[in-house]
C-alpha cells in the first residue's frame, strides 16, 4: 500500500493507522507533526510548489519501499494556514519487522524536513510575520541517510 496526499484539510490519524494495521504485517510505526504555539505564534502558513511536491514525495516513498521490507507507507502533508495544535504532517509505515517500520518512518520524516518543497511562515500575535529558516541540523539528519 502506498498513499501520498498533499492537502489543505486535516486528516484522521486513527483511520490512517487502522489502514496500515489492516495490512497484517504485525508492526506499524508513525510520526505526527503538530504546530507548536510557542512565542506568541498564532498561525503557521505553509506554502508549497504544487507542480513538484507530489512527484517529489512519491519518489522518496518509492525509495523507502526499495530500502526496507515494507507492506505499506502513508505520507500526508498539509499546506495553507494552520493554527497551534493543528496536525501538519503524518508518516506511517507498516512492516513485519519493527526495525524496518521505525527506521523507514524516521527516514521519511527526516527527508520531508530537508527535501520536500514546503516553506513555513510564522504569524505572531504581535510583530511582523517571519519565514522560518532552514536548520543545519535537519540537513545533517538527511545526510545521515545518504540523501
Amino acid at each position: 500500500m502506498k498513499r501520498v496526499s498533499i492537502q489543505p484539510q486535516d486528516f484522521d490519524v486513527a483511520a490512517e493507522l487502522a489502514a496500515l494495521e489492516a495490512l497484517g504485517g504485525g508492526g506499524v510505526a508513525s510520526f505526527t507533526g503538530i504546530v507548536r504555539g510557542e512565542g506568541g505564534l498564532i498561525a503557521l502558513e505553509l506554502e508549497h510548489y504544487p507542480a513538484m511536491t507530489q512527484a517529489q514525495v512519491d519518489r522518496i516513498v518509492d525509495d523507502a519501499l526499495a530500502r526496507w521490507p515494507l507492506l505499506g507507507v502513508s505520507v500526508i502533508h498539509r499546506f495553507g494556514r494552520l493554527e497551534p495544535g493543528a496536525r501538519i504532517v503524518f508518516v506511517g509505515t507498516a512492516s513485519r519487522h519493527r526495525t524496518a517500520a521505525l527506521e523507514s518512518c524516521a527516514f521519511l520524516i527526516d527527508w520531508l524536513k530537508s527535501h520536500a518543497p514546503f516553506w513555513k511562515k510564522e504569524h505572531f500575535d504581535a510583530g511582523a510575520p517571519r519565514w522560518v529558516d532552514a536548520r543545519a541540523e535537519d540537513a545533517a539528519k538527511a545526510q545521515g541517510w545518504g540523501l
Partner: protein
Amino acid sequence: MLNIVYFAWVREGVGRDGEQVERPAPDATVADLVAMLAARGGGYAQVLGDPVKLRAAIDQRFVPLDTVIGAAGEVALFPPVTGG
C-alpha cells in the same frame, strides 16, 4: 521563452509568483539567470543578490545553482525548504 516561478520570501521580494523571460544563452546556468534578474534592482536585487541563500529546481527537480538551464521549461527559485 522560459517560465520562472518564485516561492516564499523570494516570491514576496520580487512581488509576483512567476513570470516568463527571454530564454538565456544555451550555456547559461541558474546562477547566471539569478544574476540577470538581480540586475533589475529593487526587490529583485534584495532577494536575489545573495545566491548563497537561494535554492533552485529545473523542471521540478532540485538542482545546484551552477546547473545549465539548457532546454528546460521551468526554473524555480526559492529559499531552503522548511517542511515536515
